[in-house]
């Protein structure tokens, strides 16, 4: 077909433990904005990295203008006419815009040639730039403009944009859309990677929906609504529900009230007036697509960040928003952040030593500043036995454990002290199914014994399986809670995509 620019046929790419792309097949039409929509981990990034020469597919063919297309590096991809703008910018902060542009292009070019070309590009595509400004002085939107201009200098036929609006203000988003429209009018094609439903409908012509590495559907956006897209993106997830609400008491023991926090950093999401309540024995889920404020909220819940603008956190009738992590542990609050290596555990240290990262008043680990090694070792052995952690012993380095085993160990460490509340982020992220199952079971058991649990997760299956209530975080706003047993998947999908009727 003459109006197809790119044919993707049967692309398969697997990594240890996971197949990121399974026989991915679809066509991209020339002169259009083509969206790839999917949750985190759906395989979008893997696919575009293959197109851009950063990854090599295990199987499959790509045809560009009906000719075989195979590249081994981004430089080759650019030469063939594919350019990409990444979510995270790769600019030299201390250099000026002009210097960054000269450095970023593959061919040699004089400053005067560059300036002529730039003038042309700037006016044609609504991309004003101050050439002499240092990158540090630019806003996120302006930096993105530099990246786009840098790619346009090489005159690509296809421009890949990876989550381009995630760091932009609403005004910047609008001006980006003007640019994209101008590019398409000129005959270029844009591949637009996103999880935002609204954007797909407003600026994309065609949409390919991916889920767990597979293509679910490719169709014109004309006959789609946010609702239909959400359902396809998330799939049917309400299959097996076994939540039991019987043991939950009416008493609220953890309350977050109107927490707001500004970071002044384009890569962090400001938190806007977040409030929620957790009752004794309840598992409260916070859903959402990554980068919508989850890690920022987690830091505030754990006390790693106590610089909030306003709001309060109350636990057992105490105001704790100004307490650091240790003071919160003293009140029997325990937490497991998302990242195991280097956050909830230190990979270079032994399992025993890792116990000492999180101490509760009941633990007898230290006397007069001296570590009581026997007590720590006993505790570590207990965790290893009770949570069936596979390891040669408590002196093995944390880095030697598989992700699932280390996560079991960390969670075991946190729940062995029978906390009153456990705050956990992405409990089963990146681990195998067996460990996943045993972790979910221990969380449910813990709640039945009276511990309140807050689970932040992108994994909707997980939240629906174990929580009693779910609210959705989007762009730093937290939705009202929904009872998990009564929730509609469609509603959840809309909230995650930023649509709230």
């Amino acid at each position, binding site marked *: 077909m003459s109006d197809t620019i790119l044919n993707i046929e049967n692309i398969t790419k697997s990594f240890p433990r996971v197949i990121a792309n399974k026989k991915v097949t679809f066509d991209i039409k020339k002169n259009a904005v083509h969206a790839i929509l999917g949750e985190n981990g759906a395989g979008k990034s893997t696919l575009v990295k293959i197109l851009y020469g950063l990854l090599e597919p295990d199987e499959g063919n790509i045809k560009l203008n009906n000719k075989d297309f195979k590249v081994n590096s981004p430089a080759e991809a650019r030469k063939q006419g594919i350019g990409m703008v990444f979510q995270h910018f790769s600019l030299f902060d201390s250099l000026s815009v002009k210097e960054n542009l000269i450095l970023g292009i593959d061919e040699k070019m004089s400053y005067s040639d560059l300036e002529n070309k730039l003038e042309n590009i700037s006016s044609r595509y609504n991309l004003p730039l101050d050439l002499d400004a240092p990158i540090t002085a630019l806003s996120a939107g302006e930096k993105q403009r530099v990246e786009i201009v840098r790619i346009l200098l090489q005159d690509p036929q296809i421009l890949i944009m990876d989550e381009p609006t995630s760091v932009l203000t609403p005004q910047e988003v609008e001006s980006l859309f003007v640019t994209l429209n101008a590019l398409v009018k000129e005959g270029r094609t844009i591949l637009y990677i996103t999880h935002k439903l609204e954007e797909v409908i407003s600026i994309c012509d065609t949409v390919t929906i991916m889920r767990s590495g597979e293509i679910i559907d490719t169709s014109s956006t004309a006959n789609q609504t946010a609702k239909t897209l959400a359902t396809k993106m998330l799939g049917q997830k309400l299959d097996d529900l076994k939540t039991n609400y019987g043991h939950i008491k009416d008493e609220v023991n953890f309350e977050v009230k109107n927490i707001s926090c500004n970071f002044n950093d384009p890569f962090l999401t400001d938190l806007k007036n977040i409030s929620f309540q957790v009752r004794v024995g309840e598992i409260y889920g916070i859903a959402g697509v990554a980068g919508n404020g989850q890690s920022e909220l987690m830091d505030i819940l754990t006390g790693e960040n106590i610089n909030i603008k306003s709001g309060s956190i109350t636990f057992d009738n105490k105001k704790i928003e100004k307490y650091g992590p240790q003071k919160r542990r003293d009140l029997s609050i325990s937490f497991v952040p998302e990242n195991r290596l280097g956050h909830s555990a230190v990979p270079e240290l032994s399992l025993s030593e890792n116990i000492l990262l999180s101490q509760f008043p009941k633990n007898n680990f230290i006397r007069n500043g*001296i570590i009581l090694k026997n007590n720590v070792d006993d505790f570590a052995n207990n965790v290893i036995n009770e949570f069936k952690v596979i390891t040669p012993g408590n002196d093995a380095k944390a880095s030697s454990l598989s992700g699932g085993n280390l996560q079991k160990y960390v969670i075991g460490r946190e729940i062995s002290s029978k906390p009153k509340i456990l705050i956990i982020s992405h409990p089963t992220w990146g681990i195998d199914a067996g460990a996943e199952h045993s972790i979910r079971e221990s969380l449910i058991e813990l709640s039945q014994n009276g511990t309140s649990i807050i689970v932040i997760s992108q994994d909707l299956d997980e939240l629906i399986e174990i929580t009693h209530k779910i609210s959705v975080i989007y762009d730093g706003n937290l939705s009202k809670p929904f009872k998990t047993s009564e929730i509609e998947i469609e509603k959840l999908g809309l909230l995650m995509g930023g649509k709230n009727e």
Partner: protein
Amino acid sequence: MNSLFPSIVSRSQSSGLMNFFVPIISIVLTLITGSIIFVLLGFDPIYALYTFFISPISSTYGISELFVKATPLALIAIGLSYCFKNNIYNIGAEGQLTMGAIFGGGIGIFFHDTNAFWLLPLMIFAGAIGGALWGLIPAILKTKFNTNEILTSLMLVYVALFILDYLVVGPWKDPFGYSFPKSRPFSESGRMPLLFDGLRVHFGLIITLFLIFVSWFIFSKTIFGFQLKVSGYSPKAARYAGFNQTTLVFFAFAICGAFAGIAGLAEVSGPIGLLYRDISPNYGFTAIIVAFLGRLHPIGIIFASLVIALTYLGAEDAQLFLQIPSAVGFIFQGLVLFYLLGAELLINYKLTYKKLL
């Protein structure tokens, strides 16, 4: 075809055994490179290496001198370990040493005609305070204003050296010193006692061994040592654990400064006996090499300090018997560090030659 230049790829597992051998390999490579340099200079390499590394310690006096030089190196290096374990790059031990010598030496000058048992302990204490205070300046700058401690601590070295300069040509100049830039000599009780008659090795060695033992205990048995380690490996994990990182930075700098200050005081009240311009042949900088050569481990540091002290002695002998400039000692120190860093890189990374199309 393979590409001409290798690329550096991370190894999935670094070898624990190699970790132990790295210092030894670096020393062997240094000796080989050293012999090549000697050959190029026209010397018989065996004789030159003998003059450099064996003859300086073939007498009791020589061995005593080895300990005299190793004492400040080991003491400063163990102090630096507090910083380096915490991933703080304090390059300013030379300045902290100088400040320790000024504070402790100042007491010695003030009490130059007093003979009392409390004088030396007071001087040691003052030396520790002086070094610690000087070390706290970069700590404050780092924690309050987020400045880079490498730059500030280094610049403060020169400030301290100029202060010493000013004092010995100005207010503290010896009134009977024929205008030489030096202070009055300390009184006899302000001097480090000698351990053996006729040899210069002094009580500073005992202090150093004691502080190395204390540091070993702190590093391996206490929660403070654990906190230093965690915050060095992963600041995020330290924050998660609730360790106060500001306090850790302050302690690391203060302890390192105090140790360097004691080393400085031990120099001026030991072999020297007064204050003058050049109290340290760059011990504070060389101790950085000692700390890394000893892999920040107390036992390792003891051995490393002896090896590096030998390069100081060897350089003197080489100048005397071979007429080679004594700067060759610094070349050896530089070579050790060079090979050490190179070997360290290869423990964690490997070189591969990428296939070109």
